[in-house]
């Protein structure tokens, strides 16, 4: 019965052969330098690929070959963390979403400081957006967008209720208008998230505080935070606001609800425009974008929310070249205009906002009208910054899982909820 053992041996050998045959890594690079890029959004990949073509056309002597891969969101960050932690296998460039950046700034960041490409452009960049990716004066990431917080009104519903959006200046006005909308149309003025932070965070920041202070200490339960949460809870109690169907503003159920004219307004960052154009087709032409109301006159009317920074890892063998390319793609004016054209984001370079190219028609201008950036320029100096620190992942976790739900769904005492939340962060 040798057959058995021979068979096994043959199979084992075949296994080795078959598997080793698969393991050759492709990479036919000519003169061009290979630059590996990981992201979690295929649109970001397409953007960088187009920028690589433009770069090669402009720099024939320094050509690059961009090898970009889109991974699932969470896993893009896990993979990068694992690769940086173990010191091997990381790409040259990678996208890190803002809520994850805290993990990469812990200890000694395994990323390349970008100060020499950032500092020459300081005057034209919304610097608060770069502070999010900084530690000890070193900038490690370049964001795609400002993520300016705005409020989207459904004009059709407001008109039915006889409300003029331009007359809503303060949150008190907003509440009053909300009551009018509820009374005339039976619809809620807005929706609030119970398992995410976008309903709460911008208001806190515009009210002059944040979850963490500049030094990274927890301020989640200070007076401004409590005021904002109390206000949101009041809206819910008065039925002016309802909790977002599906729990947050990116739930499938939510898109259907809003698309059917479920609520009269929603405040989200500029990048939420893409959600309207893609998932709420029936609201085309009915949505108007306005500045956020304020709690007190003189407070800022917007804030920078969300974001994704492109970083260069210290494992890159061509750090200088990759830096130049990143400068070209995301800091130059040309690059910033492309970010709007291709991705529909409000780019971080303000002198791009006034460029004629920004009014050319695309799916966003078709949906929201042509003066998006004229409007945004008026808010230029009123974009409140956020503090993104090492504890940000922990804070955003407790906000998403406990605080919002307890205050806005279970209607528990806001002060108590925030005290508990702050205490749970070590």
């Amino acid at each position, binding site marked *: 019965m040798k057959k058995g053992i021979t068979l096994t041996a043959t199979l084992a050998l075949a296994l080795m052969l078959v598997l080793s045959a698969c393991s050759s890594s492709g990479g036919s690079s000519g003169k061009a330098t290979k630059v590996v890029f990981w992201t979690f959004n295929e649109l970001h990949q397409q953007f960088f690929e187009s920028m690589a073509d433009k770069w090669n056309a402009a720099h024939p002597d320094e050509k690059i070959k961009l090898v970009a891969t889109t991974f699932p969101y969470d896993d893009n960050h896990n993979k990068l963390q694992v690769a940086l932690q173990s010191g091997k296998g990381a790409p040259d460039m990678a996208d890190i979403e803002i809520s*994850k950046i805290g993990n990469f700034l*812990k*200890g000694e960041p*395994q990323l390349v400081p970008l100060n020499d490409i950032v500092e020459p452009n300081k005057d034209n960049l919304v610097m608060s957006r770069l502070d999010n990716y900084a530690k000890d004066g070193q900038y490690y990431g370049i964001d795609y967008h400002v993520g300016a917080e705005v409020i989207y009104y459904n004009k059709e519903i407001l008109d039915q209720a006889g409300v003029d959006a331009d007359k809503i200046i303060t949150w008190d006005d907003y509440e009053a208008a909300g009551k009018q909308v509820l009374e005339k149309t039976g619809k809620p003025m807005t929706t609030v998230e119970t398992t995410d932070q976008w309903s709460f965070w911008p208001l806190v920041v515009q009210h002059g505080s944040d979850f963490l202070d500049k030094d990274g200490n927890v301020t989640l339960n200070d007076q401004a935070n409590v005021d904002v949460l109390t206000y949101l809870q009041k809206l819910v109690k008065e039925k002016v606001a309802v909790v977002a169907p599906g729990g947050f503003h990116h*739930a499938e*159920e939510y898109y259907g609800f809003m698309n059917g004219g479920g609520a009269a307004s929603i405040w989200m960052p500029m990048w939420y425009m893409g959600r309207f154009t893609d998932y709420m087709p029936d609201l085309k032409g009915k949505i108007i974008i306005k500045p956020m109301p304020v709690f007190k006159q003189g407070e800022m009317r917007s804030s920078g929310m969300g974001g994704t920074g492109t970083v260069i890892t210290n494992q890159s063998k061509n750090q200088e070249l990759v830096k130049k390319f990143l400068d070209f793609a995301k800091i130059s004016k040309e690059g910033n205009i492309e970010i709007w054209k291709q991705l529909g984001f409000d780019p971080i370079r303000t002198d791009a906002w006034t460029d004629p190219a920004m009014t050319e028609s695309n799916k966003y201008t078709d949906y929201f009208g042509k003066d998006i950036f004229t409007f945004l320029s008026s808010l230029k100096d009123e974009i409140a910054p956020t503090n993104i620190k090492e504890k940000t992942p922990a804070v955003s976790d407790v906000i*998403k899982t406990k605080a919002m739900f307890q205050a806005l769904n279970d209607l528990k005492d806001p002060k108590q909820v925030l005290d508990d939340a702050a205490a749970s962060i070590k």
Partner: protein
Amino acid sequence: MKKILYNQRVAPYVFVLPFVLSLAIFFVYPVISTFIMSFQEVLPGQTHFIGLDNYRNLWDDSFYTALWNSSKYTFWTILVLIPLPLVLAVFLNSKLMKWSAFFRSTLFLPALTSVVVAGIVFRLVFGSLDNSVMNTFRHAFGFETINWLGSSASGMLVLVVLATWRYLGINIIYFMSALQSIPSELYESASIDGANTWNKFWRITLPLLKPISIYVITISIYGGYSMFTESFILWSGNHSPNDIGLTMIGLLYRSGIEKNELGLGSAIGMILLLLTMVLNVIQLRLFGLFRKED
């Protein structure tokens, strides 16, 4: 050569060799390394030992919530996903069952459907709006709209429904394959002795399904405590209101990966490992799996 091939003392070691090799090459180092990490604070470029701190720090509210959720989930899945597929498999195996092949395939279909995408449908079916499928269903019986994924009890119900939907077909396969090894002569002679269907099921089918039932229970305990995907998908991420969907692996993932505290994550992993191990050893001892004459 011939001697070796016929040697009954050597043969078992040859048979288990692949496992021993795989264990030595791919598991010993990672598991030991994880064990060591559980005593460390692991930071990029700055790893150092902190003794038992990780084990001290892990006993917080989230840990108990996760443990309780995972235990409840394991309990319910075992309660539903053992008897139900067993009985269905017996029916499907019966020669008199109509359209058996059709039902086998349809019950297996969910296991094939991508959970990422099926999650979309489940979230919409169990949506919080009045017009979601399950709320419409409630209205038909005079109940009011509820937020299915908002409270602990209904959230757990949806999780168990999702698990049943996904794994029913797979467990049916296990039981059906085991039913094939029961010789039909046993049933025939029992019939001659005047046993009815019920007696035959109780006296022949069940006892002979014991080895496979032990297998299914064991992997259910393990699967229950390592559940993560279902929760992740139902709440579109590792964050559910009041942590009603937080599981042990979810907690491990949150500490080790999302907050990048690999040391703490490793400690949670070690506790989880110990827990499932103890539960399974107890269970296997109860069924006498380590007895010599099984």
